[in-house]
């Protein structure tokens, strides 16, 4: 097991190297720099700015410098907010994005898992049809449509929840539901399918035959097998939650990483964009490793080698 983890960790390095290099050169290939829109700067000012961000040096030196900085965990200064470093901005935004993402995943897993188990147990019942139609709907409504509509309903018309912003738990409700709805729907479908597959197997019949209560049969025996596809889905889902949080943060004016990223992209803040991508890539690589280990733990048939 330890050997497996080490090998996976060793694999991270080349992957990160490729990501950093690719994004770095793509960024520098772009026509026009981050300081172009500030119209016609005096020559000297421009030279000073470029010197400050080392933009006047040959590309390969900038590249090596950036690699060195990233290796030390320093993502450089932000082009857009001159007195802030990318690390500081990510440090400000990430706790917010993480809270939002975890709440969304919690919504997805609890709501989706519960709906999926019940629908799977009562196959072809009205409840099953209703849940699955609702899930199909949830998969098809984009979060940037759902978000504004929820906001319109619950914040602007009914005034139950704050419209936008960040701070209290009430601010969390609408964004989490918006972000988590798609995954709740998907998890419901996966769990239902998993449940249907497991529930007819012999060991479930044995569990029932020896007189266990239905709850014990479902939760102790069937559920661990039924959630395996959900666990596999966690890796891609968390990647997508991070991406989705970009749009949800924009809709609800939440000061998370996603908003820095979008404004960075719109303003050609190279270091910010690059830094976010590197940071999220590391995060997701690590998370996927955790998911794989969890999977091997849940499914004794899977042997990590």
């Amino acid at each position: 097991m330890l050997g497996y983890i080490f090998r996976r960790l060793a694999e991270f390095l080349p992957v990160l190297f490729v990501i950093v290099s690719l994004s770095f050169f793509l960024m520098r290939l772009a026509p026009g720099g981050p300081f172009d829109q500030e119209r016609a700067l005096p020559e000297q000012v421009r030279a000073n700015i470029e010197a400050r961000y080392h933009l006047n040096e040959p590309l390969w030196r900038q590249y090596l410098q950036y690699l060195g900085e990233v290796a030390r965990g320093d993502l450089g200064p932000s082009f857009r907010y001159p007195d802030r470093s990318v690390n500081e901005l990510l440090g400000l935004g990430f706790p917010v994005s993480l809270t939002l993402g975890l709440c969304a995943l919690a919504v997805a897993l609890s709501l989706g898992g519960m709906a999926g188990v019940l629908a799977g147990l009562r196959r072809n019942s009205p409840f099953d049809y209703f849940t699955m139609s609702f899930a199909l709907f949830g998969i098809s409504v984009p979060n940037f449509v759902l978000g504004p509509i929820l906001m319109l309903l619950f914040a602007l018309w009914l005034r139950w929840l704050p419209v936008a912003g960040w701070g209290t738990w009430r601010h969390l409700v609408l964004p989490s539901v918006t972000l988590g709805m798609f995954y709740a729907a998907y998890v419901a479908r996966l769990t239902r399918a998993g449940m249907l597959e497991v529930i007819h197997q012999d060991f479930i019949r044995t569990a029932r035959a020896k007189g266990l209560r239905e709850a014990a049969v479902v939760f102790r025996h069937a559920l661990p097998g039924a959630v395996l596809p959900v666990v596999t889905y966690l890796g891609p889902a968390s990647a997508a939650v991070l991406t989705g949080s970009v749009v949800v943060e924009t809709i609800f004016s939440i000061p998370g990483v996603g908003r820095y990223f979008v404004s960075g992209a719109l303003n050609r803040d190279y270091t910010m964009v690059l830094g976010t991508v590197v940071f999220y890539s590391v995060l997701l690589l690590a998370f996927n490793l955790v998911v794989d280990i969890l999977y091997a733990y849940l499914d004794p048939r899977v042997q990590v080698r």
Partner: protein
Amino acid sequence: MSRRAPSAGTHCGPNGPHAMGAQAPEVAPDIPQSAIGHPLGVPHSRGSGASPWHDAFRRLRRNRLAVLGLAVLLTFVLAAIVAPWIAPFPFDKTDLRHGAKPPSRLHVLGTDELGRDLFTRILYGARISFAVGILATLVSLSIGVTYGCVAGYAGGRLDHLMMRIVDILYGLPFMFFVIILMVIFGRNILNLFVALGAVQWLTMARIVRGQVLSLKVREFVLSAQAVGASPLRLLVRHVLPNAVGPIVVYATLTVPAVMLEEAFLSFLGLGVQPPMASWGSLASEGAAAMEPYPWLILFPGMSLTVTLLSLNFFGDGLRDALDPQISFRH
């Protein structure tokens, strides 16, 4: 995007309710036995009765939701194609006197704040959304099929390496790379579909690779190999035609995924630029003005949702029809 778990209900297997009644008896005797069991595994069914395609079509027709989805889609696509002729107003004609009006007889879906007819803008938005959906899917199709063919045909260590790369890419935040590409190469529609297609090929590559891996050891491929067919000819003439089913199914499911991503980017202002509009940018404008003028978010949002729903219905139905082995329904 909406792929159900591939393992869903596999135990319904060949003897389940969806098993094809018309398999073995109709296969002409000169077709290798190994081709039986795959609905499209019969290269040219010369026997009497229904061809596998015909069979699949019949199953598809019986699925009401899929047919409904297809009908809605065809209507939308047709409307998008003929938009310049049926649109009641020019798509960028502003009319401040009739700005931000709710739906009326003149403007069936109302107007936006600049007085542009929303129905017209949604029609034109459909052109962009569908164009991006289809073209980006084609891009992803060509990358995915090529990659999958190479990996599956080469096998061994190269295959292992290539699939490991796909595994790793799966875990990365792809939309972020698309955004980088859009920032760098400019926010025009050509870049949009290349960028989207360039990140959507992973699942396709996996599916094709699996198909190639299992098909390349079949007798009809081996015999073609024995008479000296080149690898390219082998793949194009013998392997790929028999993998068309899964490829088509997955391509159908890629279209909604890509359309959603386009709308997502346009919503953030990183996709289609004004005065052009896609459903995503219409939703974005609508969201900005939704409190006083809710119809501006409702109608573009509904168009997008109904289209995605239809594509999902149709894609699922197509999968059930073409590949009864992985049928979901019980």
